[in-house]
Structure formats: structure tokens, C-alpha cells
């Protein structure tokens, strides 16, 4: 049986999940296997479980980009924990809410009450009238021509009446409004694009192509024994740890879910001032405007009607204007508060940060592994440009230490040089093959990709060949010509001293500094 509750999760190249807006990570468990019902899920037996404020995310150790899935916490009804028993490892059963289609249908049927308009041509002036009424003999009085004002006979127009299918602006109907920020999202999205709030999902749209995500691959070992009407559940099996902490945290999260949901609603204050729900208000207004524009636009008879409508409309507008003003003031103070709150950590907020906190890990080893992943991601994004231009990177560990601690670790506990070194030496074990820790000149630890040392050495010798007498400053400038400061002076210095000790370059020492020349005369 295919569960709709599985969702695809996007991961970084280094195997960390990409969080949504406003999503916060809470805890990480390792190593964990995934079961659907009673059956093992193939390819999802060894991985990490990240618990965030919105999701339970499984990231596979071997193929993080393909085999990772997530569960929305909103879909979880309750969890049950069973401890280790003989050979059976500790497990957490997650019972899912039965996705009841009736709820969604209700919403949609309400939407479907649409007025059908019929068209009929006036037999006298040939004007094409539009009306919302259905044509019957009893209500012929309603069918006076809007242009000439004459009511035709029933027999004359009964065959000419054309029922017009209600035209729905399709794009608008399908868009899903976010309950927190009112942004209209594309129907395929499950969470708001702007603020990350979970969107209401209409499950009667199942046949819509977006719903079944083909990126999710669930292959079961045996029959899972789940029935559509029975309880749906999946299990997480803890291979080493007892998983107590994770279970408790999930339980707590689910309990607090309703409270969390309402906490972040953006214009929560505005609703209370207005007494009525703001969305209703807008509906009323548009309805009034519709009356004016859609029907009775022409003809003497309708002029009076439209005048009446306008007067009524003015009343509504005037009435709502005052409440609007109140709303505006409330909004203004809201925004003011918001500014005061976010202005300080504005820069940091840009990407949804995945915070690797020491406290979330049971053992130091797990922490180091997670740091290692984060470091990899950090280096790959930070030095992306250099990677594109030169194809290789070479950064001293000291620089990484400073960069990483300043950019990522403030507020979540700085890492020590020792931890950083351990994390870097784990790249290979974690399958992050494109970076490795090297020691250049037998003393300076560097993060390098490929044969970066050979590459930079060749480039330096090339530059010195064309510019005999180049110094460190000139070389640094030449290497970083494309405005990226990626080749640091420290690294270049090391490469130069390597070239000198191997005899490829000669030095010319003066008070002003050291200049470099290619060794043509004194071959070794």
C-alpha cells in the first residue's frame, strides 16, 4: 500500500536536509532503520533521523539524495515506543492520521456553489441580455430587456436562452491561501513559499498530477499489512541507541502542535479588532462590486438599478473604510514590532539554518560527524566560485576554522580546533569524496580538492615565468584577479617556499621583500 504521507526531502550534497522557512531542527538520531507497517523498506535501513519543528526526516547514509524521505508532523496522530526486547531492537511506531477526504471535499463543495448565467437575445432590439435567473413562465417579469425595457413572451425566448457555463478563473481557484501570511501558493506546495506554514491540503485533488511525487521510492521487503481503513503506521528502528529521547521529543512536539500553529499567524491582532474574519469582509466587498459590473451594465432599466447599487456600495465602502483604518493602524504597529524584532538578526535569517547543536547529540562522535557534513556544505558553498573558476580549492585549516566559527557557530557553540580537525579527517569516511585533509610542506594542514597543490604550483610557476621578479603581493593579486579572494597569501607563501626548496624557483631577498625567479641556469 502506498502511503501519501511520505514526502520527498531535499538534501544538500553533503547529506544534510534543506530546511524550510521557519523550520528549526531539534534532534538527530543515528543510526535508524525505516519500516512501513511491519515490513522493512528497502534502501532505508541505515540512516539518520532529523527531528525538526515541522517534520521527521530520514536521511539515508548511503544515498542521501535518493533515498531520503520525510513525514509531516501534522500527519502524525500519536507515537508509541517499544523498548528493546531480546533481539528486537528498540522501536518507535508512528501512527498516522487517516487522511479523511471528506474534510477537503467540504471546502471544495462550498467553492463550487457558482452562479450559472444564462443569455438570451431580445427579440426586439436584438440586445444580448445576461441574467442569473432560470427562465420559467412565472418569473417572466424579471426578463425585461436591459436595453429597451420590454418584456418578451416566454415562447419567443425559451429556445433562444443559452446556458453559459460558469467561467472560473482557473488559476485563482486552485491556488491555496496560506493561513498565516495569506500568500496564494501553487497547489503542489504543501508548505507556504513565504513563511513555511503548513498549507491546508485538499485531498480530493488526488488525481491531480502533482500529488504523487515520483521521487519517493518505497520498496517493501514483505507485505506491510496495512489496510486503508485500519490504522496506518510506520516504524523507526533504533540500531544502537534506545531512541527514548527522540520518542519523547516527538510526543511533546505533537502535543504542542496546535499551540504552535496559532502562535505564528502574522495578522493575528487584526482579526480581533475587526470582530469579523478579514477574509469574509473581502468577499462581501467583491460581491458588491460584482453586482455593479457584471449585470445590468446597459439600458434605461438598469441605470436606476445601478444607481441604487452604487449608493449601497458607498455605504459598504464607508463602513469598511473605518474598520480598514483600524486594521491599518493595527498592522502598522505589528510591522513596527516585527522590525524591532528581526532587524538585528536579519542577515543571519536569510537561509533557513540547520543548527548543529552539541546538546542534540548523545555522543561526541555523532556530533563530529554532523559537524563534518555541515563543514562540507559550508566549504562547498563558500568556495563555489573558486571551484567553478579553478576547479580546485585549497584552504588552510586555520582559515576554515575562523570562517566556520564566525559564520556558522556563533550562538550554537564554537568548535575547538581539535574538533574541526577530526571533522575534516572524516570527510572520506562519510562519502564526501571531493574534499580531503592534506598537509602541505609537511606542516600546514589544508582542505583540498583533487590535486589542488599541483595546480596552484603550476599556475604560480607560470606567472613567475612571464613576470620574473614577482613578489608575494603581486602573485596574490594575479591569482585572485577575478575578484574572489580565494587564494590566500598563506597558501601561496607555502607553495612558494615549496617551489624554492624543490629548486623550481629562486629567491632574491632585499629589504623591500622577497622576489621570485624561475630557475633556468642552475638545474639540479
Amino acid at each position, binding site marked *: 500500500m502506498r502511503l501519501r504521507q511520505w514526502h520527498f526531502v531535499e538534501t544538500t550534497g553533503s547529506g544534510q536536509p534543506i530546511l524550510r522557512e521557519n523550520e528549526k531542527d531539534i534532534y538527530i538520531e543515528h543510526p535508524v532503520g525505516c519500516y512501513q507497517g511491519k515490513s522493512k523498506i528497502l534502501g532505508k535501513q541505515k540512516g539518520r533521523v532529523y527531528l525538526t519543528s515541522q517534520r521527521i526526516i530520514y536521511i539515508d547514509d548511503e544515498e542521501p539524495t535518493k533515498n531520503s524521505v520525510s513525514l509531516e508532523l501534522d500527519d502524525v496522530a500519536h507515537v508509541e515506543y517499544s523498548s528493546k526486547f531480546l533481539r528486537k531492537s528498540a522501536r518507535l511506531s508512528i501512527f498516522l492520521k487517516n487522511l479523511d477526504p471528506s474534510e477537503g471535499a467540504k471546502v471544495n463543495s462550498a467553492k463550487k456553489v457558482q452562479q450559472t448565467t444564462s443569455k438570451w437575445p431580445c427579440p426586439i432590439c436584438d440586445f444580448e441580455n445576461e441574467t442569473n435567473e432560470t427562465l420559467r413562465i412565472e418569473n417572466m417579469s424579471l426578463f425585461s430587456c436591459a436595453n429597451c425595457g420590454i418584456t418578451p413572451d416566454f415562447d419567443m425566448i425559451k429556445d433562444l436562452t443559452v446556458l453559459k457555463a460558469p467561467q472560473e478563473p482557473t488559476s485563482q481557484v486552485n491556488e491555496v491561501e496560506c493561513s498565516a501570511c495569506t500568500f496564494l501558493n501553487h497547489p503542489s506546495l504543501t508548505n507556504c513559499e513565504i513563511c513555511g506554514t503548513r498549507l491546508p491540503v485538499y485531498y480530493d485533488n488526488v488525481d491531480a498530477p502533482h500529488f504523487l511525487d515520483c521521487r519517493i521510492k518505497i520498496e517493501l521487503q514483505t507485505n506491510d499489512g496495512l489496510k486503508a481503513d485500519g490504522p496506518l503506521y510506520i516504524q523507526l528502528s533504533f540500531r544502537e541507541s534506545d531512541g527514548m529521547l527522540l520518542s519523547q521529543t516527538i510526543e511533546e512536539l505533537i502535543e504542542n502542535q496546535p499551540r504552535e500553529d496559532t502562535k505564528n499567524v502574522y495578522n493575528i491582532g487584526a482579526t480581533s479588532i475587526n470582530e469579523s474574519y478579514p477574509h469574509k469582509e473581502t468577499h462581501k466587498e467583491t460581491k458588491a462590486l460584482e453586482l455593479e459590473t457584471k449585470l445590468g451594465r446597459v439600458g434605461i432599466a438598469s441605470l436606476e438599478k445601478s444607481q441604487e447599487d452604487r449608493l449601497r456600495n458607498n455605504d459598504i465602502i464607508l463602513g469598511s473604510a473605518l474598520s480598514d483604518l483600524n486594521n491599518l493602524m493595527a498592522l502598522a504597529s505589528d510591522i513596527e514590532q516585527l522590525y524591532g524584532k528581526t532587524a538585528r538578526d536579519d542577515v543571519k535569517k536569510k537561509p533557513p539554518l540547520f543548527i548543529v547543536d552539541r546538546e542534540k547529540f548523545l555522543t561526541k562522535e555523532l556530533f563530529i560527524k554532523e559537524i563534518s557534513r555541515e563543514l562540507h556544505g559550508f566549504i562547498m558553498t563558500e568556495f563555489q566560485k573558486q571551484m567553478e573558476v579553478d576547479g580546485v580549492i585549497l584552504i588552510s585549516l586555520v582559515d576554515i576554522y575562523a570562517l566556520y566559527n564566525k559564520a556558522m557557530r556563533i550562538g550554537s557553540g564554537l568548535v575547538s580546533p581539535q574538533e574541526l580537525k577530526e571533522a575534516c579527517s572524516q570527510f572520506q569516511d562519510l562519502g564526501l569524496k571531493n574534499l580531503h585533509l592534506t598537509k602541505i610542506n609537511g606542516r600546514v594542514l589544508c582542505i583540498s580538492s583533487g590535486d589542488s597543490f599541483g595546480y596552484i604550483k603550476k599556475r604560480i610557476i607560470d606567472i613567475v615565468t612571464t613576470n620574473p*621578479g614577482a613578489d608575494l603581493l603581486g602573485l596574490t593579486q594575479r591569482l585572485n584577479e577575478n575578484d574572489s579572494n580565494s587564494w590566500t597569501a598563506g597558501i601561496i607563501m607555502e607553495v612558494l617556499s615549496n617551489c*624554492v626548496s624543490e*629548486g623550481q624557483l*629562486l*629567491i*632574491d631577498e632585499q629589504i623591500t621583500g622577497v*622576489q621570485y*625567479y624561475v630557475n633556468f641556469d*642552475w638545474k*639540479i
Partner: protein
Amino acid sequence: MTDSLPPIYNFPPLYTCQPNVLIRKQQLATWCDLLLNYAKDNKAWCLNHEGSILRDSESSNASIFKNETIQRVAPAPFIDQIWKEMVRGQKAVKNSDEAYFILWRSLEQWSSLVLQWFETSGKLNQVVTLYELLEGDESLGWEFHGMHQTLCELCLQKLCDRGRATLLKEQNKIMGVKVL
């Protein structure tokens, strides 16, 4: 004075002691060649430690270790190394504390050249003063003409060792020579 030296003389790294040992060996060899060339071209028998030519106990300010064209000077410790290398390779002989004889020919070559002069000019079995040998008209055009006296004594000593010459001393100072 340094115009006739090879172009490497104007190569700036020459004036810095190279850290690589193998390279430094070649650098010192280059310096030795330069010193020999320099001394030969300028007929400088004797250079002081700073690389200036010593003539009749007066020295000029110009030094081979100082390159005015590219504004480079070899540092003193490096000059010490160069001299050590010169002496070790028997391309120079230390005269006093501050002066070196540059041997662009080895002592053996000089002594056989002197012997050749004795043979061709028919001075065998005659007593010839050192002044006559080095400054006299008869040795004009020979390469050793104008050689420093102390250096000449060293050459003649070589001949003595081979039993071809007898040195005539007066008050412990070599005055003349008789070649058999």
C-alpha cells in the same frame, strides 16, 4: 670593469644565498667562474675580501660583489661562503687576512709557464732576479708579466719541489732564482 662578465652577473637571485643546497652549490660555482673571469679580464692578481682589486697596496672602491646596474649587493656571510668555496676549489690562495690571490690558472700551470719562459729566452743556468722575471722587458707579452711577487714565489716553490730551480735568498727574502 664588470662589463665583460656573462649575463648571469645581472641576475638578481645570484646575490641571495639560495636555501636549496643543490642549487646553492651551483650558485657558488657560478660565483667562482665569475671571480676568475673578472680577475683575468682585469689582470687582478689579488682581491681583498670585499671583492675589490688590490694593486700596489691601494684598493679601488669597485667590488665584484656589488652590482650597480641592478642595485644588488651580496651579503657578507654569503661572501665568506664564496671565498671558502674558492679556496677549497684551489681557485684562490689566501695571502693575508684580507686578501686572496685569484688563480685563473693553477699554480702548476703558472710554474710550467715560467719554466717555458726560461727555456725559450735562454736563461737556463743563470740567476734571474724576481724583478727581472716579473717586471723586466724580456717577459713582456707573457701572461705572468706583472704577477704579484708573493704569488710568483709560490710558483717557483713548485719548481723547486720538482728540483728544477734553486731559490736565492737574502735575509730570508727571495731575491733571485736559478733554473737548471
